[in-house]
């Protein structure tokens, strides 16, 4: 047994010597280093994964909230830009209209519409010009699209407009094609009703009703309303339901027409 052990010792010493002075140990070492490196990397990944996930989630949440805020800002700015462009365009168009002499015998005053739901409910509109611009009750208010209404109340720095859809408001209109005259009255709920239309007047849905220019309030041939329904009433006349050509909810600037006469 002792002999066997001595042989074993000699064998192991020889193996150690061979291993030390041959490339075997280097190969083993390189394999060991490779394994250690990869396992360390794996361990690092496993350890850092929860942090990475949490960080990602937090970053995503922060980015999402920032994104929402930025989107809101962009929407606000785009709306402001659009409004500003529309305002510039409106003012330019209104100025062009007055320069082209469409509003003959009228001197226009440009005012900004103050959109307020409370006024719309009562079929009224507020503008930012009043006595300071010599605006008086009864002056016509139009924009590039058509008739809006008439000044009903004047304050020092603002005025109220009675819209053409106001049930207490009446306007003398004519058919744009046949030129037949008729009286339109506001019916509320953004509609205007025209009664006592002669059955011979060929009014149909989609026709435009214009101002006549005979009432000394509005210039002639300014669009007032568009016919949306024509029906027969039992009194021998036709009636027509119309909507204003002007979209009151998107008003920017209006022109108050002061009659020179």
């Amino acid at each position, binding site marked *: 047994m002792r002999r*066997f052990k001595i042989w074993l010792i000699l064998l192991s010493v020889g193996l150690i010597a*061979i291993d030390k002075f041959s490339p075997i140990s280097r190969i083993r070492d390189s394999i060991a280093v490779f394994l250690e490196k990869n396992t360390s990397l794996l361990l690092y990944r496993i350890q850092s994964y929860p942090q990475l996930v949490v960080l990602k989630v937090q970053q995503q949440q922060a980015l999402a909230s920032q994104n929402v805020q930025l989107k809101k800002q962009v929407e606000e700015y785009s709306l402001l830009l659009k409004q500003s462009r529309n305002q510039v365009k409106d003012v330019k168009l209104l100025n062009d209209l007055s320069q082209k002499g469409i509003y003959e015998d009228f001197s226009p005053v440009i005012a900004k519409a103050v959109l307020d739901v409370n006024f719309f409910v009562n079929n009224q509109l507020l503008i930012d010009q009043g006595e300071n611009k010599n605006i008086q009750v009864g002056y016509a208010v139009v924009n590039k699209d058509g008739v809006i209404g008439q000044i009903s109340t004047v304050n020092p720095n603002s005025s109220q407009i009675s819209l053409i859809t106001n049930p207490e408001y009446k306007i003398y209109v004519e058919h744009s094609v046949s030129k037949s005259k008729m009286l339109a009255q506001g019916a509320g709920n953004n509609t205007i009703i025209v009664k006592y239309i002669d059955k011979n007047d060929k009014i149909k849905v989609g026709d435009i009703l214009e101002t006549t220019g005979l009432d000394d309030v509005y210039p002639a041939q300014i669009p007032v309303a568009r016919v949306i329904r024509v029906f027969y009433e039992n009194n021998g006349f036709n009636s027509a339901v119309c909507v204003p050509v002007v979209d009151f909810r998107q008003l920017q600037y209006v022109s108050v027409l002061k009659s020179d006469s």
Partner: protein
Amino acid sequence: MIVNNLRFIILCTVLVFLQFTINNFTIFYVDVIAILLVSLLLRGNLIWLQLIILSFIGDLIGHWYLGSHLLAVVIISFFTGKIANFYRMCGWFPRMIISMFYFALFFFVIYLIELSTHRVFTSIDSLIFQLLVILPLVQLVLEKLTVRKPSEYYF
């Protein structure tokens, strides 16, 4: 016999995996196979082929040169011949103390071999960790695995 050898192979595989994990994922550099070698040596039921294979496995999965474990085991075996009978009769605590002593001796031999080959991986921290944690664990597993008969212990 096949079943017992199978159990032993499974134990060795688990220990190899344990050593690999500890060496790669902790600051310690342990030699679990050496603990197993010392325990087997102390039990006295020596199968030299088993010891040689195990010592080569121990060399291969660590950074030791081939033959280091074998040399250490053979040197230690000169001192374990007489204590094997006493070791068999002891309870778990004296066994552990004896195992600790012989493992420390084994560790010292390995350290000398490392010094002579200019390649040292052992450290006091690792030695303490092995003595206080790994060795009792391996001893416990061996106690549970072995089937005791009046005169012999085998896997």
